[in-house]
């Protein structure tokens, strides 16, 4: 069983290579995400997960293959234009605008908003902890609060494709759990979600399919219902099934 997305894919990566200068980080990765689906990209540190997201958002150019979104190639579309097409990223390390307040961060996130259910009110309903922090500078918030703002900021654009990069990084497990609890409401709003995680269990709990990267290559791709934790762990750590079993 391959992880081929059913029907027309919203996001379709075909044989993508990405280089950092002379160093190749992604080798011929193909990945399709269908509209409404949640896919988790798993892998250890340095497996190329964040690089893959940068290729989708346009922060890094791809050196081979093609990234297609909604049936059209994104080749040549600059990052700021892709945001307007409905691609939103919650970046690794949150990257909030430090001198802006929580509310201002959300307003900037809504700069190229498409019509949809997300606005300041619905974001505050999703993350009630943010409401009393509206006027605070983003830089003084706790890690979990910042991550909630980063997710809210991405939602403000009413994304069709939401990319989540290492939401759990550096946060207490209880906080990670709270943040992931918001995911069903986000997918229910119609967003297609691509989650990049090191936290395998958290990601597998929310995803329909998993895609494991190992040193820049696809190591495993399957629906969550058809793989075991061991299989994913093996792909994650680069152990061949034959060696383990």
């Amino acid at each position, binding site marked *: 069983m391959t992880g081929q997305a059913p029907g027309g894919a919203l996001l379709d990566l075909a044989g993508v290579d990405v280089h950092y200068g002379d160093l190749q980080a992604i080798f011929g990765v193909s990945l399709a995400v269908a509209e409404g689906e949640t896919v988790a990209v798993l892998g250890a540190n340095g497996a190329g997960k964040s690089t893959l997201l940068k290729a989708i958002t346009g922060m890094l150019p791809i050196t081979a293959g093609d990234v297609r979104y909604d049936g059209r190639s994104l080749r040549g579309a600059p*990052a*700021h234009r892709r*945001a307007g097409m409905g691609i939103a990223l919650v970046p690794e390390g949150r*990257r909030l*605008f430090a001198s*802006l307040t929580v509310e201002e961060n959300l307003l900037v996130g809504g*700069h190229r908003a498409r019509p949809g259910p997300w606005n300041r009110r619905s974001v505050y309903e999703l993350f009630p902890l943010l409401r009393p922090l509206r006027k605070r500078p983003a830089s003084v918030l706790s890690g979990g609060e910042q991550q909630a703002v980063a997710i809210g900021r991405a939602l403000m654009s009413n994304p069709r494709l939401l990319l989540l990069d290492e939401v759990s990084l550096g946060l207490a497990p209880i906080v990670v759990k709270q943040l992931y609890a918001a995911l069903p409401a986000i997918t229910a709003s119609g967003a297609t979600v691509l989650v990049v995680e090191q936290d395998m269990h958290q990601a597998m709990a929310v995803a329909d399919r998993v895609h494991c990267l190992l040193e820049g290559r696809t190591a495993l791709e399957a629906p969550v219902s058809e793989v075991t934790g061991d299989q994913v762990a093996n792909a994650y750590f680069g152990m061949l099934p034959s060696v383990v079993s």
Partner: protein
Amino acid sequence: MTLVNAVVQGVLLGGMYALFATGLSLMFGVMRIVNLAHGDFAVFGAFFALVLVDSASLSPLVTLLIVVPGMAAFGYLLQRGLLQRAVVASPLPALLVTFGLSIVVQNLLLELFSADQRRLQIGSFETGSFQLTYDLAIGYFPAVVFAIAVALLVGLSLFLRRTQLGRLMRATSDDQETARLMGVDNRNMYALAAAIAFATVGLAGVLNGVQTNFSPASGPTLLIFAFEAVIIGGLGSLWGTLLGGIVLGVAQNVGAWIEPAQQVLAGHLVFLLVLALRPRGLLAKGAPA
């Protein structure tokens, strides 16, 4: 001249310095570019007005309708075409580029207009004044310049704090890459900030050209006063820029009241004092506005 008079005139002079410093403060606050050609572009604006006065016999104040948008367009293109390439983590490339621009502009003006001292004439309004008391009078023109400076800084501050475009500018200033992920064209945003800065430079250059003589070599002195105003007030703070301009103007005029030959020196001494005691400026802040 009494001390009170010296302080009052100093505050008004500070308005002019604040006006000069606004563009410098904005370029630094948003793009982290220290524009060493700032004073020369102000002189450029004044000569631009002079050409219009001579060729179309416009009043210098009417030329603002052309000079200010013209300088804004020039600033937009300069940022987009040249300065944006120098916006990197290190401030050095931008310093070198604007240093080079300063030399280019000075020599271009020298070539076109000779080294003569020039002045923009607006007639009696420039010399008229309100007589407040026997020995205290406020010139119409310095008062108008001061009011313009305050209005400009208040307006810019409100623009950056309260409007979506201002928020996008501050967000871009915080993190260009992430701003792009929000659909913000970072280069366009910086070019717009440069356009605003250059519009204020043109305005300051013309008003200064009405108040005092200027020549192609005047730029560096104007740059120093603008710098001192920005540093005294605190880098990146627009309110600080107004305060810095006033402190500098008052220091110079009180210095002149004590010893007429030492007007400029007094300003420099106060500047050094602030650097020594409050190196981050009187109203230092991390962010613009």
